[in-house]
């Protein structure tokens, strides 16, 4: 079976996004270099390469932390969705900065000796059995490897061919990378730079990533909705805003997004075929259910993307019982046409 994939293609918004990302990166590095030179005591200076090693190292960590908080922030407030839209570019940029950091370290600290620099990277500090003396470089190498895999498979081509489930699982590895980077810093730079600001910054970043992750999960978690005879209660039809959805969670299977379009009620899977975005937080735009994350669209009537696209999601039967909306807990096969139920009979 061949998978067609659908690129979230280049568009003015992405260009603007990347413009800001590059601007932020340059601003950070230039400010870091200037501030380092300006704040060292008279007659003392770091070598240029070591300033860049530190600038890229700290920047990569800050960017990685930022990438990890965008998701939860977007769940808590829709204002952050524009950042989510192009998060992968930020992820790839983070990998590139981390790679520059690693390349400079290998050149400067491990080059020019009698050992191969890559051997030196793992062998020059043999204290794998001690905590404070631990060769923290190896943790950085592991994290960089994971980030490389993420960056290399970040394109939608991989997403389509691995399937969103496996792809998402793979990209959860970024949390492992984050943990490794935190250890890399704690056992490395923090053993030398003792200013309390560094410890505080590291702790704040860890708390922000972990805490927001937690808050994001809480914000999007609702109790499982009980089913009676295979039908789940959605609530008063009149309470669903036109063009939006209510998310219902059956005890088993994917969450369901129940949309209102005028007087019609449609139900589809809440899980976007692209990167598992929450469709129920999306809107009906031009007659199509539109994902809040990257704007993939599905026809309400059959859960299929309009041509030329071919993505399909499950549809669900709905019914109205005394003004209350109910949805079947049993999905139809993805792409199955399903007639809507009507809140009020047509006049």
């Amino acid at each position, binding site marked *: 079976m061949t998978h067609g994939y659908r690129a979230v293609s280049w*568009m003015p*918004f992405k260009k*603007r996004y990347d413009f*800001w990302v590059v*601007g*932020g*990166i340059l*601003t*950070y590095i230039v*400010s*870091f*270099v*200037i*501030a*380092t030179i*300006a704040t*060292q005591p008279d007659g*003392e200076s*770091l*070598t240029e390469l*070591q300033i860049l090693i530190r*600038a890229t190292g*700290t*920047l990569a960590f*800050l960017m990685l932390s930022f990438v990890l908080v965008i998701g939860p922030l977007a769940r808590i407030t*829709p*204002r952050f*969705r*524009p*950042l989510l*839209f192009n998060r992968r570019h930020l992820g790839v940029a983070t990998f590139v900065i981390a790679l520059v950091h690693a390349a400079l370290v290998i050149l400067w*600290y491990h080059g*020019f*000796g*009698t*050992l191969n620099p890559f051997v*030196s990277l793992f062998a*020059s*500090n*043999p*204290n794998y059995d001690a905590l*404070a*003396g631990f060769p923290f*470089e190896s943790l950085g190498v592991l994290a960089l490897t994971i980030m490389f895999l993420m960056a290399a498979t970040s394109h939608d081509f991989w997403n389509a061919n691995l399937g969103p489930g496996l792809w998402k699982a793979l990209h959860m590895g970024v949390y492992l990378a984050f943990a490794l980077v935190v250890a890399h810093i704690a*056992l*490395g730079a923090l*053993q*030398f*730079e003792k*200013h309390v*600001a560094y410890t505080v910054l590291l702790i704040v970043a860890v708390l922000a990533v972990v805490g927001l992750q937690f808050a994001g999960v809480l914000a999007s978690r609702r109790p499982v909705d009980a089913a009676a005879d295979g039908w789940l209660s959605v609530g008063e039809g009149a309470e669903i805003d036109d*063009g*939006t959805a209510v998310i219902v969670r059956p005890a088993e299977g994917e969450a369901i997004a129940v949309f209102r379009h005028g007087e019609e009620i449609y139900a589809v899977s809440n899980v976007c075929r692209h990167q598992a975005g929450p469709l129920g937080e999306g*809107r*009906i*735009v031009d007659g199509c259910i*539109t994902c*809040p994350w*990257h*704007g993939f669209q599905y026809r309400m009537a059959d859960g299929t993307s309009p041509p030329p696209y071919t993505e399909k999601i499950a549809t669900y039967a709905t019914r109205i019982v005394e003004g209350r909306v109910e949805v079947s807990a049993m999905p139809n096969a993805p792409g199955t046409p399903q007639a809507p139920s009507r809140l009020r009979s047509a006049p």
Partner: protein
Amino acid sequence: MSKKDFFIGWAEMPDADRRFFLKAGAGLLIGAAGVAGFVAASQRPVGRGTWDLATFKAFTGIVTASPYPMLRTRDIDGQVRTALLVCQTKCGVDLRLQNMAGKAVVINGSLIQRVDHASIAVADGPEWIREADAPVDPALAFPTPEPLGEITLAGEILDSKCWFGAMRPGEGKVHKACASLCIRSGIPPAFFARDARDNAALLVMTENGGRFGESLLAHVADPVEVTGAVSRAGNVLLLDVSADSVRRV
């Protein structure tokens, strides 16, 4: 929220998002500059080391091979000073010294200096050393080390070249792998000792009066305590220890 307020990446951006995006962008730049400045300003001072890589000079004096290649010369600041000799990269010059030890020579290299510690990174190629044309001041001959006694010191083992100024900073955990690579490659190891009143001293390390081998590598850049015999040779302090006396603290 109406359809107009709903952000879709491929569509015209809603005004509210556009405003937010612009503010976020501006905030990002200001934040990046602020955090960078703060992080950079919190770095500790790296010390007064310098290495003028681009300036090669001729240093006239008497050279020795033991315990490490060193030159006694007046060409650093007019005083009789001892400079450790190293290569341009991470290596020692032991093998390149051949039969020159003990002779009056002219050495071509660039100066690495940290307060009164000096090292000369000698030029690549055979032209780095030649015998002096005229006899030199006999005061430049190497004095016999004068023993100062047995002592236990706390501090850090580092490589002299980096700490003198080749790398800034050239000590501590982050520099650990580099320091052990340097020592492994033939750069003289040194002990940076600090007492309770923050008086610091740098001692060049030897084992049984000779050069240290790889036995030291496991302890480089860790906080350690060593016990050994200190002696003074001109303006260089020497610390003779055996690798087993090095203890991590």
